[in-house]
């Protein structure tokens, strides 16, 4: 093995990694936020809607779940502008792709959350005279949200990992930064020796922090 490790060149460009890490975390947060909106809206529509709505939502979920994320990224970034006649930059399109991707998973999460709201609680809401809409906003959604918190933490960490795929359409996130250093300095092993622990540590830290939050706010379903 004749490989001589030389980290000095990599350190000189390491700002690309830190900057990319920040962008990755932001993309994950933005797409989780948008994905949650999609997820909540569709979960409510699914739970309270008719058969046509349900079939349409199930179709969306199955489409996203059975298609490679890479294909979805290409489809949104190259495909949609080619027929829509408008264009957006890589980061925006990537955030929307991840949002649709997360949304499909979060529909299931929130649907389970809505189903897990104890019927007595909903009845109590009706008994004090809440309209169905207010019952949804003040009783069912907040309860369902707190039940779903652990799944949301997992979704965030998993989205953070998925941001690595942004590198294929040149979103300047963490993996893209690493590839830039790889291609421009040829310090291959050093870059990946740094990149792997960055993903590992960040994932662990986020998950530990979110678990603390959950302990404060989450409702454990097995009450």
């Amino acid at each position: 093995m004749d490989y001589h490790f030389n980290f000095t060149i990599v350190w000189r460009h390491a700002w690309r990694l830190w900057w990319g890490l920040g962008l990755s975390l932001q993309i994950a947060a933005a797409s989780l936020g948008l994905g949650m909106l999609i997820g909540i809206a569709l979960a409510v529509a699914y739970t309270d809607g008719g058969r046509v709505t349900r079939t349409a939502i199930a179709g969306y979920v199955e489409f996203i779940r059975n298609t490679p994320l890479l294909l979805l990224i290409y489809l949104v970034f190259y495909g949609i502008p080619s027929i829509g006649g408008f264009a957006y930059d890589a980061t925006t399109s990537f955030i929307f792709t991840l949002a649709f991707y997360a949304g499909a998973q979060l529909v299931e999460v929130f649907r389970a959350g809505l189903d897990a709201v104890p019927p007595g609680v909903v009845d109590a809401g009706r008994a004090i005279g809440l309209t169905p809409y207010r019952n949804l906003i003040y009783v069912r959604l907040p309860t369902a949200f707190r039940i779903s918190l652990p799944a949301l933490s997992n979704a965030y960490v998993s989205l953070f990992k998925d941001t690595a795929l942004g590198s294929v359409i040149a979103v300047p996130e963490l993996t893209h930064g690493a590839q830039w250093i790889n291609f421009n300095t040829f310090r291959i092993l050093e870059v990946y020796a740094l990149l792997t622990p960055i993903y590992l540590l960040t994932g662990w830290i986020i998950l530990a922090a979110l678990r603390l939050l959950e302990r404060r706010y989450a409702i454990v379903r097995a009450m």
Partner: protein
Amino acid sequence: MIDAMIYALPFLWDGFLITLAVSGIVVAASLALGLVFGVILAFGPVWIGLPIRVFADTVRAIPLIVLIFTVYYGLPALQVPLSPFWAAVAALAAFKTGHVIEIVRGAITSIHPGQMEAAKSIGLTFLERLVYVVFPQAVRCFLPPWINSVTDSVKGSALVSLVGVVDLMMAIQQVIGRTYQPMPLYILGAMIYIAVNAALSVASRRLEARFAATVAT
């Protein structure tokens, strides 16, 4: 739109076969390795279980694309000659092995330890205990998450296109490079992936029903 799809189909066939080959090899290799390491993790001593645990947790905690790039760019730097195909397959298989280890361990630990003790008391060897007592019961817990991970492998195989292997994803990109019509091709590609995964989930539902029936007697 339909014309572009029909025009493209013959060009996608070879790539489609590569996608199937990659998925097949990855599923088979990860199942074999995952079974062995999962059993070791469940029953072995701590000193041998710890590296397995570290491996499984590490590959599951980093993005698959990072693993593929690490193997693809990293091993040649260490003077290990490796074709793009095998580099990508090795990375995918390592990634999937991490998942299968976890599924196997979970399925085994779901079996009451009394089962193992009872089998021991009637004089079965360790291998016999596994094959005749633990596995037939654990398979019910093992199948649903494992089938999920098989569909994941088919989807994950699209990433081999990033290191230049001409799989279905790459074949799609090549046709787009000639026709400049991205949308029909991406939709066609999505339909092919969905068809493969739908076929898999029909097959898996049969498999699950079969095992549920035999064990429940």
